[in-house]
């Protein structure tokens, strides 16, 4: 006989109280503070300013630039990771020699510290003596050498590349889990019916892999909008303001003491991420197929 054991609800109180103090209250306070002129100099006397912080943000050229950079980063990295992760997973799901080794190698960047990765890629992208420029020079492509992180036109793409490099292996692991859950019977039946490899991929693999896509796309989109460390370590938003993203801009406003304004930016970022995550999740879940 299966006997269920019940515990009283008040056992959850300590956890709930901590959750309220350290999670709910700061979020609610942040929401209200974004409508005030809260500043380090007026910590205890913030005044209600309505939508002034938000209006000012949309007239701020650096906020707009940070917003554009954030959207560019989130979109590019998500697309890159989804595609590259899938290619790696498909490759390493087949009968490749040493696939366990390669799976580990490709997954490895996901467990490395972002700070370490940032410093490592600074050496790669360095203009004088950088690994990338050295390779280009050896290949006779000296005309393509560049100050990759110092050039405002290429710096953002370098950071995007690093993000894709870091997280593709992680996406690969999620896809692999999905691929291994697809029964071989479907493929056998399709083969008997004379389906080509592309048809099998389109009609079997892709639909049955949709739950994995949902996870990868949602996680990377949210991660992309929240990006901070990579930018902070590799360029700190520079040169000038060229790689500034929302999180680094919020940090810079916060450190200037503009707490109300940084709260307003955080609220906008929160709303943006929530909306996109809900839309994506809903849209992707509709396409998922029951096995």
């Amino acid at each position, binding site marked *: 006989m299966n006997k269920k054991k019940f515990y009283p609800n008040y056992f959850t109180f300590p956890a709930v109280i901590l959750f309220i103090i350290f999670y709910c209250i700061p979020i609610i306070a942040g929401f209200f503070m974004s409508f005030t*002129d809260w*500043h*380090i*100099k*007026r910590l205890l006397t913030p005044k209600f300013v309505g939508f002034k912080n938000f209006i*000012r943000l949309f007239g*701020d*050229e*650096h906020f707009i630039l940070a917003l554009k950079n954030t959207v560019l980063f989130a979109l590019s990295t998500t697309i890159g990771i989804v595609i590259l992760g899938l290619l790696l997973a498909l490759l390493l799901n087949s009968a490749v020699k040493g696939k366990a080794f390669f799976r580990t190698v490709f997954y490895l960047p996901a467990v490395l510290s972002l700070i370490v990765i940032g410093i490592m890629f600074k050496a790669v*992208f*360095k*203009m*004088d003596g950088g690994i990338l420029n050295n390779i280009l020079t050896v290949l006779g492509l000296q005309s393509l050498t560049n*100050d*990759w*992180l*110092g*050039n*405002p036109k290429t710096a953002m793409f370098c950071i995007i590349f690093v993000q894709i490099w870091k997280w593709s292996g992680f996406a690969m692991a999620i896809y692999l889990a999905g691929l291994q859950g697809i029964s071989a019977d479907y493929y056998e039946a399709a083969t008997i019916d004379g389906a080509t490899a592309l048809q099998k991929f389109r009609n079997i693999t892709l639909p049955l892999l949709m739950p994995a896509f949902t996870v990868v796309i949602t996680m990377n989109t949210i991660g992309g909008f929240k990006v901070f460390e990579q930018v902070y370590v590799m360029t*700190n*938003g*520079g*040169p*000038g*303001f*060229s790689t500034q993203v929302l999180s680094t801009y919020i*940090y*810079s406003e*916060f*450190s*200037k*003491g*503009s707490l109300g*304004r940084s709260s307003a930016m955080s609220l906008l970022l929160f709303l943006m991420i929530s909306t996109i995550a809900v839309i994506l999740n809903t849209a992707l879940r509709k396409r998922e197929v029951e096995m």
Partner: protein
Amino acid sequence: MRNKVAKKLLSVILVASMAVGLAACGNAGEETQGGADAAENTENVEAENDTEESDSAESEASEGETAAAGEADFSILEGKTIAFMTSQAKYFEAYQTMADAIEADYGCTVEFQVIPDDEYTSMTNLKLSTGEVPDVFEQNFPSQNVTINVYDYCEDLSNEPWISRLINPDLLKDMKDGKIYALPKESSSGYQAVYYNKQLLEDCGITDPNPKTYQEFLDILKAVKENSDATPFLQTNADNWTTQIYMTGGIAVALGDNAAATYEKLLNNEITWSEIPEAEEILQKYIDLYEAGYVNEDNLSIGYDDAAAIMADGKAAMYLTIEQWAIDFENNYDIELGSFAIPHNDIPNLPTGNYVQGLFVPNGGSQIEEAKAFLQVWSMPKYQNIYYESNPGFPAFNDVDGGAVTPCVQDLVDNYISTGQYSYEINGQLADANGCFNDLWNLYVEAAAGTKNAGEVWESFQPIYTDYMEQQGYEAFQ
């Protein structure tokens, strides 16, 4: 430990009696007015020191040490760890040697937290505002007092025992309340000059350059470009605080006698930055250096820490920076440097800071008394001399031996400071607005990158400036 305390007390009594006897004829505490004057004053102290017997110097040091110690009980430092936050550019290896000596004498460990330069001010502000503070931290003062809001977050150190030993206390007083909020490292600093590789310039046919007009400065750059493979003018814009040096000093020099009036108008919101022709002119000349090919191509991705190796390798001929870099460079490389000031608008004045670097004690710290005791110990000649042995300069205290200053820095004192040919850079004069200058420096970097012209930089900066001043609560901006 008891013996140690007893010995200390005995030496305090002995030295106090000696000090009383000597007080009537002593004038070591004579004050000077400006930071630059302090360099001359320190020179005199050093010259006097040189003529004395070595044992007399030792006794002076010991006297200073005990006087610095006063009657404070340093036993509170025993077994404590002092968290000491500083930035990469401010940190010197000698700090660790000083810390080791203090640990040996007082049993107090120092834990250095060295923050990258480009994050330092924002990190300091963040720590102060959130209360996650180190025991002491290093920052320029009094120019940064407003930016880091010392009034709310730092201890007033005006009544500490080491104040009486300061060479230049007037420079250190806060412009608003006249209090001293930090223990200074030097009596004068921030000589914003071009430090050049002497041999490399000689190979280009230039010996002991001393440009009196801006054209003469450009001629030097041209000669280097034409006669060597070296970059004439090294810039390290990955650290935007190094980018600003040209403008921060140049605008002040170009403004000349109008400087004070212009700063006042800016602070009263009577003019905009775009309405200062000197600001646009100096920035344009800076941009012209890039367009003329005088600046290294990788300027946007290399930082202050990279400069020494580049100069030592002969890849660059000149670097516009501050004297601390030159002192550090000559300590580490066997290459002779020379120096001169850029004659902005044909005025051969040396831009200098009316600030020094100092150690602050945050009032949110958990060991305030220990931190104050630590500062008192840190200021003692025994430990300060350790720093100046390897980094000769202009000490803040009248009983500390600054050592033989690097010739290229001494030349600046002789050629510019002693002759009155210097101007205070704008950051110190506009201390109230310092908190938004990081954005301005980023805009300078954009100008260096070619994505903004001089006019656009000032147009972009104006709303940032007015907004910052409004946020700070200045009436003229409400």
